[in-house]
């Protein structure tokens, strides 16, 4: 069981800020494939990975990062603070 979080337009497109997911995926990319296969809104949110960033246990990561022992994964667009 893993917490998956969505922010900004990713959250809006998927329609929720957070969900618990049971996954067999071993990498972020594997998790994305599973989500894409779920429903249209997920496929849409994850259609262009160049417009997405991922954090694994609250650290910015790459899409090929391992999910071994991970408790929280977050997807969001490039950041625009400051």
């Amino acid at each position, binding site marked *: 069981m893993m917490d998956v979080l969505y922010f900004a337009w990713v959250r809006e497109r998927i329609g929720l800020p957070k969900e618990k997911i049971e996954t067999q995926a071993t990498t972020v990319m594997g998790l994305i494939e599973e989500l894409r296969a779920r429903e249209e809104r997920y496929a849409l949110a994850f259609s262009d990975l160049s417009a997405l960033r991922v954090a694994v246990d609250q650290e*910015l990561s790459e899409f090929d990062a391992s999910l071994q022992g991970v408790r929280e994964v977050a997807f969001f667009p490039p950041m625009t603070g400051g």
Partner: protein
Amino acid sequence: MRIVVQQEAFDAGAELNTFSAAQVNMGAVVSFNGIVRDLPGGGLDLMEIEHYPGMTEKALEKIALDAMARWDLGDALVIHRYGPLKTGDTIMMVATASPHRKDAFEAADFLMDYLKSRAPFWKKERAAGSSDWVASKAEDEEALKRW
């Protein structure tokens, strides 16, 4: 080093004075304030800032620690707001203190560049009934290569 993430408004001048007064023998203090701008054609009703509680604080702390490690700094301060803001509101500030003006300037500049593209904040602009997420700029990502 102080990192604050809050919804409430803060007094940038008072924060700067408190920061400066706490320093011992730092001759140079640099601050940056980010302020909500109106849209190019005007009409901004609201800017909403979303963030990632938990990760935000960690990311800001990491950026500030990096700055402390790279430059001769006595101290660094980061305050960043989230939630709804209006034109003219102060969004955030950073401040750096150093014995040398060059270090204080570069470290503040570095903090801003990293905060802009590596801390999990997202801005949404609301105007005339519709709202749009602010797009990240290629030049902001580009700016990181300076460091």
